[in-house]
């Protein structure tokens, strides 16, 4: 299970965090219409907001690379989008990320990080350790938010350079921000 509501540890915020709502408001303001995603606990609140928004189309994927191709098509058809995924999904995208250079379309992805801050599961560490490097090698700018107070300005900067300057950008949402997942028997 990835549902953070299952966990009761003090490592999780006592109340619902406001930064996912900050992100949602930014996506609305930039007229983002297609939101492909592979679910992650760290994105659960944002995904709920997207599913409840009539102006946005949530598109659950079977694998993250589908989302890169979907956003290229969305742009050809006149719409903006954003891809939501977890760090382990970034590796699934590598070849498809070439579309960002070929089409020079506005590519924004918001990536919840695993394997970097109090991680319990060693299987998350290899991909979590190479996430930023994979993006950089693929020609994608990388910005990072590690504290709730900076999410808004980091995502706003990312959305600005993506949609105004067609500069493909990934925002890494640190595991420190989300909280390490707690595994209980």
């Amino acid at each position, binding site marked *: 299970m990835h549902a953070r509501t299952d966990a009761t540890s003090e490592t999780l915020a006592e109340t619902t965090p406001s930064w996912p709502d900050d992100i949602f408001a930014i996506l609305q303001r930039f007229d983002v*219409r*297609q939101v492909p995603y592979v679910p992650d606990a760290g994105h659960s609140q944002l995904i709920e907001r997207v599913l409840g928004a009539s102006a946005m*189309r949530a*598109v*659950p*994927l*079977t*694998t993250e*690379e*589908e*989302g*890169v*191709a*979907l*956003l*290229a*098509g*969305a*742009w*050809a*058809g*006149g*719409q903006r*989008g954003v891809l939501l995924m977890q760090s382990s999904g970034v590796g699934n995208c590598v*070849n*498809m990320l*070439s*579309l960002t250079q*070929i*089409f*020079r*379309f*506005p590519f924004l992805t918001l990536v919840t990080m695993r394997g970097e801050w109090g991680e319990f599961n060693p299987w998350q560490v290899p991909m979590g350790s190479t996430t930023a490097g994979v993006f950089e090698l693929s020609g994608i700018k990388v910005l990072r938010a590690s504290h709730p107070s900076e999410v808004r300005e980091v995502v706003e900067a990312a959305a600005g350079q993506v949609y*105004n*300057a*067609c500069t493909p950008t990934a925002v890494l949402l640190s595991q420190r921000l989300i909280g390490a997942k707690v595994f209980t028997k």
Partner: protein
Amino acid sequence: MSTANLLERRRVVSALLAGRKETIVVGGLGASTYDIAAAGDHDRNFYSWGAMGGAVMIGLGVALAQPKLPVVVITGDGEMLMGMGSLATVGLQQPANFTVIVLDNEVYGETGGQASHTAGTVDLVGVARACGIADARTLSTMAEIESFTAAMQDISSGPRFASIKIDSANLERVLASRDGSFIVTRIRGALGYGPI
């Protein structure tokens, strides 16, 4: 394998696109893109020269953005197999204006004719149907293709999926544009969207 009763791919694609009107056409990596170019260059053609496995998802992105226009993906069996999960994603979205057509020659023609999974055990029509694309069928004759061409224009009854078994003969390449910026800017322009 070249079998006399299989359809000739260029003839099939020309028939599929003869009455295209405002249709946006996405080609998959490989010979299907040459077939689309051979049927006539068009400012609503989206050619692929890479990103194998992405054609259906590119088409879905266009289809969701332009629900009033027919959007058709024409790809090959190898390209479709690499993006088979995207049929599940299409099944979930149920875009009524969307059609996926696989030109199935049961081989990887671009790389020397190695057998694909459809030459063996895999039934892509069955996959599409199991993914929730209820209108999934095999087209075997030119008459069936011509009636399907008319159905493709109906933006209220998709998604639909068709597999067409074609002759595996390699034909002369008809080279479409390889410039992604040109291709996407041209389609956007045709739909009334300017550059940033």
